[in-house]
């Protein structure tokens, strides 16, 4: 072995220990590392990849049950069934979501859910949102599906922004076990002024005369209100999320 320079062994040991500790931390190991083969092997064992990390569904679920209120969901493009579980998200503003499958928000703690771009929902999409009080649904929503809001037990406000046509309710089961159901405490449905002209004779575009809506209206649980001039005239008047 050639000796061509003097080395401070204390400093060298400290440096190697520091590097070894960094490798052990990154690799999730605690064993002794021999130099150099052990160092090389330990580094080879660390998975390559970008800065992200993969977590298991269980880990994610535990995380979501913790405190995801600081997560910004604004850029979300899709959500799977039970995607939000019972997460403590706080209010949800999802401006890019256009379609939703069943049971997306089941049990989520989101007092207000705002979906400006929503077009198509499936049966049961908003079912079991038992902590959600307000749904704000954008103007392109094509219909209110069967069992849509079923068991949303504290729901008190629905905003339907479509102004060209009534949003058809495809089955009165949409409001089963909600305050809007027969005998329920009731709530308010905000609709555009254009659909607020209640003739009540089935001849005009009028929620009170529309199929299924007319039946629910008969329960006496709906207070109809105009979007225009209300607190819900804009999604966010100042461009900031609802808090």
């Amino acid at each position, binding site marked *: 072995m050639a000796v061509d320079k003097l080395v401070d062994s204390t400093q060298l040991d400290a440096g190697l220990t520091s590097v070894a500790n960094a490798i052990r931390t990154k690799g999730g190991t605690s064993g002794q590392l021999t130099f150099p083969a052990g160092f090389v092997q330990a580094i080879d064992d660390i998975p390559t990849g970008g800065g992200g990390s993969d977590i298991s569904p269980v880990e994610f679920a535990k995380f979501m049950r913790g405190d995801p209120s600081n997560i910004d969901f604004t850029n979300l493009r899709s959500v799977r069934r039970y995607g939000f579980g019972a997460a403590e998200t706080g209010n949800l503003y999802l401006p890019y979501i256009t379609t939703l499958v069943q049971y997306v928000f089941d049990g989520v703690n989101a007092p207000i859910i705002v979906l400006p771009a929503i077009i198509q929902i499936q049966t049961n999409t908003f079912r079991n949102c038992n902590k959600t009080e307000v749904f704000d649904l954008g103007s392109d929503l094509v219909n209110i599906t*069967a069992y849509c809001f079923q068991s949303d037990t504290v729901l008190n406000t629905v905003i339907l922004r479509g102004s060209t046509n009534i949003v*058809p309710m*495809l*089955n009165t089961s949409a409001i089963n076990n909600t305050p809007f159901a027969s005998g329920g405490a009731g709530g308010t449905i905000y609709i555009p002024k254009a659909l607020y002209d209640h003739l009540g004779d089935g001849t005009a575009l009028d929620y009170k*005369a529309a199929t*299924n809506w007319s039946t629910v209206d*008969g*329960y*006496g649980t709906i207070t109809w209100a105009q979007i225009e001039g209300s607190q819900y005239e804009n999604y966010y008047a100042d461009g900031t999320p609802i808090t």
Partner: protein
Amino acid sequence: MIVQTHFDVDGRDFIRTVSDAGRYVVRDSVSYSEACDPAEFGRTYTEGDLMPPEEQDMDALAAKAEAYDILMGVSE
């Protein structure tokens, strides 16, 4: 076949329209799994496509399942 039944909501006569074959009922290009209207509107419907199971009346499906079990001797 379209089936219509009358029911009462707060003293007002309504008609519930369904398909006995588990199909949508259609009016003005909108497909309903169940359509309820004030009787005086006289709205009529045609049968449309078959509904997926999750949109059908689950009580009716349960009754059919029970009937099937009886027919097959699984239960009485």
